[in-house]
Structures are given as C-alpha cells and as structure tokens.
C-alpha cells in the first residue's frame, strides 16, 4: 500500500478493524484465533515447525509496519527484527496467552529493542534524539488470529499518526520540502522549482527540515 497526498495519506484514519480475517482466506476469526493459540502452545512445547509458521506469519508486518517506520535504516531494522525473534524464542515459555495473540508481545519486544538502540546511539554519538516508551496511546487493539495485512494496515496507521504529529511541528516551508522530496518522491530539481529556490538552497531547507523532524519524531 503506497500512500500519497492524493490518496489522503495525511488524513488516513479509516483502517480496517483488527480481528476479522477476510472471508474465504482463513475462515472465521474464532477459528483463526484458535489456530494461532494451538500454534503458540505447540511452539512452547518445542515444535519447530509451529514456531517457524508463527514467525513467518508475523515477521513481515513486524518488520515493515512496526520496525522499519521507527528505525528508517533497513540494515538496522533487519538487526532489530533478528534480535526480536531470538529474544522471543528464548522467552517463549514465559508468554501467556491473551486474546490479543502473539503479535503484540513481539511488537513490545521490538519497540523495547528500538528504544534501547536509540538510547545507546544517543550516548555514543550525542545525538539530540527523543525517545519515548509510552506506547499505550499509540498501541492498536490487537486480536489473535488477525490477518497479516490487517495487522500491517493497523500498524501503518499508527506510524502515519506519529509521522503526521511530527510533521505538524515543522514550519510550513520545511514541511513542504519533506512532502515534495520524500512523500511525493520528486527530484531535487523539481522540488527546488516548486519551492522557487535553487537546488542548493532546497538541499539546505530539506537538511534543516529533517533535523527538526528528527527532534520531533522520537522513537515510540
């Protein structure tokens, strides 16, 4: 799903509710939740195939909708995903089943690791990044057995809200620079022309805009 201003990304609010898998794909939601619970119990009991099935199902939304939008750099995001999965496998026996399924638990591990990484990078490089760990206000309502695409859309809506909130703090010209270059994916020259500046000056505006956005974005 690629969003653009024409699609109304800035006001993307209508996200399918969690829990219900599309009819004809995985059956009724209760059956899907029961299936996930059975897989989790089997994995806790040492069933490697069940573990693999669970992780393969949940890793893609975890990577693309939770980790990558919070980390940015694909290589760092891949490391976080690997560490999340390893930690989850080490601690799977401590997981207690709830109606939300395994995904929120994995998500929580991933966000802990992302915040830890941001803190350690900040200590190392003295960056002015903000990190928060109060995820309750941006935590979607999860249900066990939810379809991966729905999970991804729900998580992506959270990421969009975080991005919008950060963008709203920028001054209008800085925000326009980010929209043109990163959301509309226009070339430097087109962006500069649209803003009525030279390409060199556009680079500076974007550079300043990203520095301001970095402070506002934080890690949540």
């Amino acid at each position, binding site marked *: 799903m690629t969003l653009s201003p024409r699609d109304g990304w800035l006001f993307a609010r209508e996200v399918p509710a969690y829990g219900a898998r599309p009819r004809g794909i995985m059956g009724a939601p209760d059956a899907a939740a029961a299936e996930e619970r059975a897989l989790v119990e089997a994995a806790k009991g040492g069933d490697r195939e069940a573990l693999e099935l669970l992780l393969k199902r949940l890793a893609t939304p975890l990577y693309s909708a939770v980790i990558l939008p919070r980390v940015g750099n694909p290589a760092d995001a891949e490391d976080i995903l690997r560490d999340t999965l390893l930690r989850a496998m080490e601690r799977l026996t401590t997981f207690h089943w709830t109606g939300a399924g395994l995904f929120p638990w994995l998500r929580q591990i991933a966000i802990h690791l992302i915040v830890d990484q941001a803190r350690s990078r900040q200590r190392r490089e003295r960056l002015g990044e903000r990190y928060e760990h109060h995820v309750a206000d941006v935590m979607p309502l999860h249900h066990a057995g939810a379809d991966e695409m729905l999970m991804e859309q729900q998580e992506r809506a959270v990421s969009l809200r975080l991005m919008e909130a950060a963008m709203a703090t920028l001054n209008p010209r800085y925000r326009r620079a980010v929209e043109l270059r990163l959301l509309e994916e226009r070339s430097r020259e087109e962006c500069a022309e649209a803003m009525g500046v030279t390409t060199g*000056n556009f680079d500076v505006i*974007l550079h300043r805009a990203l520095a301001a956005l970095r402070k506002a974005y934080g890690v949540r």
Partner: protein
Amino acid sequence: MSHADDWNPDDGPPPSDDERASARALSEALDHREAPRDPDLAAALSVARRVQATAHPDPEAARKVADRVVSAALAEHARPAWRRALRGRWGLAAVAAAGLLAVGVGAGVSATRPAPRPVDPITATTAGDFTERLGENVGSAPAARIYDDRMRAYRDRLLRGGRR
C-alpha cells in the same frame, strides 16, 4: 550571484558553506542505499528513510527480508546457548578478551621460568662425578677418601677434555 543573495530569509538564517556541503551530501545520500559515516548525516538520513518507509512501504521487499531473517534466527536459535551468547559486538569483545587473557597468562608463566643455559661439553660429562652411586663395599670407607677418589677422577676428566 552569491549564496547569500539568493537565500530566502523565511527559510532561516543564511547557511554556512559547511551546512551547504552537509545538505548536499544528505541530498545525494537519499538517492543511494549506503549509509553515510557522519553520525549527524546518518541520523538525518534515517529520519528520511522512516518517512519513506511509512508513506511508501515495499511489501515484497519486506517479505523477502522477513523470511530471510526468520530462517537465520531459527538456525541461530538451534545452536547451543553458549554459542548464541557469543553473537554480536559483545560476543566478539568477549572472545577477544578471552584470547588476550589466555595469551597474557601464557606469556607470564613462560616469563617466570628460567631459560635453559648452554652447558659446555666438559661440564656435561663431569656433572655426575660427585653424585653417582657409590660402588660395592665402600660403606666402611672414610668419607674423605671417597671424596678424594672422586676429586681425582674429576680432575683427570678435566685434563682429558671431558673424555672418560
């Protein structure tokens, strides 16, 4: 036209040459995959990538990465716990520290042992003259005589250049 002349004051204070260079580097990095080394530039780029990943997800690429990472993580999880503990930067540091410790202890032990000294051939052949077992029926001989006999044998050996 100078840089200052074409700068719009609405966009903030005029940039320095250093800022222009950083901005140019960031703009170029946006079109490439490799991460810049400068931490501030890398951080700004990662913010840009976050915006892009949020607005323009690539599901196919994400699925490939996720499948690869799941396989690698399962394989790693199947290894013994001590080998898993040695992964990553801290694992490498632990291995390096253990290696240095082993080399240091080994070097210390060998430094405390005296090195073998070269022995000249005469000394080597006469070394046992005063410590070899006494022959038969000498138990009643005076110690001074035994000593004299041995001293004589030793002196003769020296004069013959070590030959018996």
